[in-house]
C-alpha cells in the first residue's frame, strides 16, 4: 500500500470563460520514505497538487488515497483529524503563532489532539533540539531568525509523528545558507525517520536533495525522475527515456 496514491486527480477553478484547469488527471504513487520534490513553472498546478494531497482543498475530479483511504470522500472533521495525526505542514511564511513561544508552537498539534501539556512540551523540546534549537524554546517567533523559525515549523510538523510532511516552498523566504539547512533537515526526516516528504519548490539546489522530482506543466505530469539510484541505474533510466524519444 502506497503512502500516497493519486488517481485521475483534477482541479478546476471557476467556470465558463474564467475556467482555469489547475490539475488535469494526474496519477501518482508515492511510497513510504521517499523525498519527493514537485517542480514546474508558476501556475503549473504544483501547489494545488500539494493542497489536494494535504486535504486542504477538495478536488473536482479523481481521488487521493492516504495509506489506502480516500480522503476526497471524508467529512471535514475526519479530514481535520487525519491532518492532525498523519500530516505535518511546513509553510513558506513559517506561520508560527506570534504570541506563543517556540515550544508552545511546536507542541500545538499535540495540544490540539488533547495530549497532556507536560508530555506535549517534552516531545516538543525533543524535536527542537533535534533541529538544533536547544535553548531557543522560550523564544517567541519575532526573536528568531527566518531559518530558525522554519526549523521550529519543521519541529511542529514532526511532533505528532506524522506519516507525511508537506512543505510548500519551505525555502521561498530564506537566504541560500538557511535554505540548505532546511533542505538538510527535511532530508534527515526521510533518511533517519523514514517519513515521506512532499515538497513544492522552484529552487533546483533544494530540489536536488530529494529522491525524486515530479515535473508539472499545465496541470499535467511531464516528467518523473528518480535521482537516488547509483550512477549505472540512473543512466539506465535515462536511457529508457531517451528511447522513448
Amino acid at each position, binding site marked *: 500500500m502506497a503512502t500516497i496514491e493519486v488517481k485521475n486527480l483534477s482541479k478546476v477553478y471557476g467556470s465558463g470563460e474564467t475556467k482555469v484547469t489547475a490539475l488535469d488527471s494526474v496519477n501518482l504513487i508515492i511510497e513510504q520514505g521517499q523525498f519527493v520534490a514537485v517542480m514546474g*513553472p508558476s501556475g503549473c498546478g504544483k501547489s494545488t497538487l500539494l493542497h489536494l494531497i494535504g486535504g486542504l482543498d477538495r478536488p473536482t475530479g479523481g481521488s487521493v488515497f492516504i495509506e489506502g483511504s480516500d480522503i476526497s470522500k471524508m467529512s471535514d472533521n475526519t479530514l481535520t483529524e487525519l491532518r492532525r495525526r498523519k500530516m505535518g505542514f511546513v509553510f513558506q511564511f513559517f506561520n508560527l503563532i506570534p504570541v506563543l513561544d517556540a515550544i508552545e508552537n511546536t507542541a500545538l498539534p499535540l495540544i490540539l489532539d488533547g495530549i497532556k501539556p507536560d508530555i506535549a512540551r517534552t516531545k516538543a523540546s525533543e524535536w527542537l533540539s533535534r533541529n538544533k534549537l536547544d535553548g531557543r524554546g522560550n523564544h517567541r517567533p519575532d526573536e528568531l531568525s527566518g531559518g530558525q523559525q522554519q526549523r521550529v515549523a519543521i519541529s511542529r510538523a514532526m511532533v505528532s509523528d506524522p506519516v507525511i510532511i508537506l512543505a510548500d516552498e519551505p525555502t521561498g523566504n530564506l537566504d541560500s545558507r538557511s535554505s540548505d539547512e532546511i533542505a*538538510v533537515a527535511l*532530508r534527515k526526516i526521510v533518511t533517519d525517520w523514514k517519513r515521506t516528504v512532499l515538497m513544492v519548490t522552484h529552487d*533546483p*539546489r533544494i*530540489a*536536488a*536533495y*530529494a529522491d525524486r*522530482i515530479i*515535473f508539472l506543466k499545465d496541470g499535467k505530469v*511531464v*516528467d518523473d*525522475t528518480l*535521482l*537516488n*539510484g547509483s*550512477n549505472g541505474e*540512473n543512466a539506465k*533510466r*535515462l536511457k529508457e*527515456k*531517451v528511447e*522513448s*524519444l
Partner: protein
Amino acid sequence: MVDSGLVTFSNANGQQSKGEYAITPTGHDELMNWFRMSNIEEPHQDPFYLKLMLSLELDEVDASRLIVIQRAALYQELHRITEQRQTLDPQNQLAQMLLMDKSAMHLEADLRWLDMIESRLDEVQRQPAPKPAMRPRGRPPSQNA
C-alpha cells in the same frame, strides 16, 4: 619549460631523477602575468544547444522531450554532487566543498537556462531558424558525438 626559458634545471647531486628546477626571471614574469589574468571561461560550445536547435528543424525529434531528458540528467548529477557534498566535513574539507559548490552552481545555472528555454520554446519555434552564417562556431555533430 626549460626549452621556453621559463625555468632552469640543475642536477647538483648528480642523480638523474631528483634535480631542482629554478624559476627564471622570464618565468617569474610569466607566472605573475598568469595570476593577473582573469579567468573568464569562454562560452563553451554547448552540444545540447546544438541538438535542440537541430531538433527544431526536424519533425522526428520533440524539442520539449529533449529538454526533459537533459533536465533529468542534470538533476541526477546535481543530486549526486549534493549527496557527496553532504558527506564532507565543513571543519576541514572546506576546499573540496567549495569545488563541489562550483559544479553544483554550474549545474543549477544550466537548469535555470533549461527552464528559460522551455518557457520560450514556442516563440523560438515560430521564429526563422538561425542563418548558417550566424551559427556558433563548432564542429559538425557527427564529430562531436
